[in-house]
């Protein structure tokens, strides 16, 4: 079986316990307006341009594909860039190839109680590929998913069965809001969270703080309440990263997140305390 991967990052320090390698799976069913990995959204292979050292000669765009007004960077763009700054984003790996690549660092990962984190994109979309990869991993490498939780219960339970740790996002509780900013329904996410809370698999709830979108009193209260109901007492808050928009230019896309980026975020500790949830701001 094969899976499409857009990046493998060694020594990721914020993607689970110990020191880890994070595998970024290509493709996501959501389209969060603040997404800081836009190259992970599409399931198709894409080409992305790094701004570092760009001569702005335009050769990559000239070699790209035109669809009406839009230009898409292609393999030809990568060939055309005189500085080699256009790179492919999305490479097919067989589960064996990926496991071999990850196993090369097995000794390091094991020593420090670390392992592999599957992120994305949405790793749940590649659950069969990941499950097969995990089978080939050397013993002692812990497996973690960093997920939005957007999948069927069946898929999610499959993920739980191969996981040692889960990093689970709770973004917006109101379904209309979720649909507006993330482009899908959040019902399955909330449902899977309940499964997670009961599963016994260690996990951390992560809440992105997006100014005036997720950091509103109403939303944070709803999240805290929801966590309380599920007997979860710890969450990490991730303040919006102002550089999130940087990668969109590399895909020749504009970044229109639909909120005012310059606003400060509110990390309302008090709200969570009311529901006995300890928070850590990352």
């Amino acid at each position: 079986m094969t899976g499409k991967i857009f990046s493998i990052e060694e020594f990721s320090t914020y993607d689970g316990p110990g020191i880890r390698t994070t595998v970024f799976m290509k493709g996501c069913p959501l389209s969060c307006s603040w997404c800081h990995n836009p190259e992970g959204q599409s399931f198709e292979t894409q080409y992305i341009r790094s701004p570092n050292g760009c001569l702005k000669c335009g050769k990559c765009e000239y070699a790209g594909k035109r669809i009406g007004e839009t230009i898409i960077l292609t393999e030809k763009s990568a060939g055309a860039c005189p500085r080699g700054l256009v790179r492919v984003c999305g490479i097919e790996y067989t589960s064996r190839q990926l496991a071999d690549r990850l196993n090369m660092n097995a000794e390091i990962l094991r020593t420090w109680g670390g392992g592999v984190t599957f992120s994305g994109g949405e790793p749940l979309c590649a659950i069969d590929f990941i499950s097969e990869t995990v089978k080939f991993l050397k013993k002692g490498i812990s497996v973690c998913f960093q997920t939005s939780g957007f999948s069927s219960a069946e898929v999610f339970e499959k993920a739980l069965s191969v996981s040692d740790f889960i990093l689970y996002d709770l973004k917006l509780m109101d379904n209309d809001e979720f649909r507006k900013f993330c482009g899908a329904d959040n019902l399955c996410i909330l449902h899977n969270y309940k499964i997670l809370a009961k599963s016994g698999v260690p996990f951390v709830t992560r809440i992105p703080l997006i100014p005036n979108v997720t950091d509103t009193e109403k939303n944070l209260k709803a999240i805290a309440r929801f966590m309380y109901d599920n007997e979860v007492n710890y969450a990490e808050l991730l303040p919006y990263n102002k550089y999130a928009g940087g990668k969109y230019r590399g895909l020749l896309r504009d970044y229109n997140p639909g909120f005012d980026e310059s606003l400060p975020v509110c990390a309302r500790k008090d709200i969570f305390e009311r529901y006995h949830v300890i928070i850590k701001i990352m």
Partner: protein
Amino acid sequence: MDENIYRSREFLLDKGYRKMRCQDRTDMREALRGLSDTEKLCRRFEQAVADEKPVFYSYDEFGFNRYRARLPIISLDKDYPFFYHDESFGNITIDYETLLKKGLSGIRADAERLYDKADEEGKLFYFYIYRYFDACELIVKKYTEAAIKCGKERLAAALRRVPMEGAANYFEALVCIKFIHYALRLNACCHLTLGRFDQYIKPYFDVSVRGGMDKAEALYLTEAFFISLNYDGDLYQGIQQGDNGQSMVLGGCDENGKDALNEISEICLTASEELKLIDPKINLRVNKKTPLSLYERGTKLTKQGLGFPQYSNDDVVIGGLVSLGYDLKDARNYTVAACWEFIVPRCGADIPNIEGGMNFPLVIRNVMLADLTACKTFSDFRAKVREAILKECEKKVGEDNAIPFHDEPFISAFVQPCIAKGREINHYGAKYNNYGIHGVGIANGADAMEAVRIAVYKDGFVTKEELIYAIEQDFKGYENLQKKLLSLPKMGNNIDSVDEQAAFLMDAFADGLNGKMNNRGGIYRAGTGSAMEYLRAAKNVGATADGRNAGTPYSSSFSPSLTAKLNGPFSAIQSFTKYDLKKIINGGPFTMEIHDTVFRNHEGEKKVAMLVKTFIDFGGHQLQLNSVNRATLLDAQKHPEKYPNLVVRVWGWSGYFNELSQEYQDHVIARTEFRC
């Protein structure tokens, strides 16, 4: 941080005091005509001493700061190499133990005792020691009077003993070290290391503790001492500002192999962390048994962005030095020279960075141009490269052995057993007189070998003639070939075939120097450092088979090439620890740049510590770790005024970013380009 320390640090960073130095310069060229070079140098010292006036800066506990920015002008008879013309012999760790114990008078007494029985050469050496020490006494007198006048009672009291007599407590020991640095530098010694400070200072520290010195006082004195080491750092620059040799080694084992980390090591780490100054540059000696907590302590320091501590691995270094012929006790006592070279304190007068280095990419390129077409197989080509490296070693040894050195009686007084032997260091006075040669561009060299193997022999996507022509043309018209070459396996990604090329190159280098004698009765040591040669030597080297363009820099020391697309730190660590580094132990660190956001909380710091420990446990010899942010560096280039105190690690040393020339700034930035 103590209030006074805070103020004196502010005073230092303001740098205004530098303008207060006297810019006059005595011209002695006429007056010294016809004298020997040794005599000229001694007279320069005496004149420099006469020209100096006591200088104390705000809240300064130690004095011994330069009044005149420059030494008197003299002209020497011989054309000494760059390093030893304007500079005196240095880059060693002197015998602080004996100095602190006996003082200058005690050392002079030894010489006096031996004078009558000495031969002519010995007598001359002792005679110069008297002259230098007499001049030292003059400076001490000036400072004693000034200290009394300024009401600096503690210093005045200390100067009644040190440096002429041995030190009796921690403060006196610090004054004595500060003095000797000042004095040797008045004799143009620019690279003077501090060695195992936490070891040799311990007896005096203990006396003070018994006498009632508490932790706060110990930290205060240490911080005041560290600040004072920074005052004149700008005057003693090597290649760029900051390259002044003030490296300090903490931790490690004692002569009997026992763990020697102590409370002074701890205080020094705290002082360095609080002060965030470029001097002294901290080196931590570690081994497989070193607990993670010490690495965490080191990581906190790395977080400050100073580019240190640099780590060295006792498990590799000590064994490596022993196999080069160093006594076990001396090897266990090893220190680090100005940058990273492993040297032996007290009795070593090694020159671990003798002119130039083994320029691997150049050697390989030359073999390609001359012999590639005739090589039927890759093994044939490898054999030619090995032959060329061996020949290059012969040549370097010949060149280096022709380098003249002038006599160095002053610093020789602090190197064992010069006085007992009646010989200064350039006349075999020291116990160790070895030369070290840097191995420059190892990663680029290994990548070039691998490129030839794949492109020409294995896959054959280019003919020998075409490849040679392409590198001769600097890939003009061969851009696609260059891209292909750049995309081949590179050192740093844990790919055995490339890493094996590096092992082959290092073996040839070590073999080529094995058994060679230098002109001072010592041996040659092969290393993995590049010093400034990653820029200087690379500048004149045409395009290379790894896809590198003509004139562009190599990677610094022992690290992946600048254009290599890297998997990440895990793979890089494994690539660079595969080789048995004991065989090539002159020094030269694996360098890793880590984005500063990783350090943003304790969890991140701890994980960096895990990574460092991994490198050591895997058998790495030396590690330099930098916390960097590319965006910050780029902004600092555009708006230097916003970043007056931004410090970066350059090669073996750290400097203020604004004080580096652009090519060095650019290289620091380029190193971050493909990193995490």
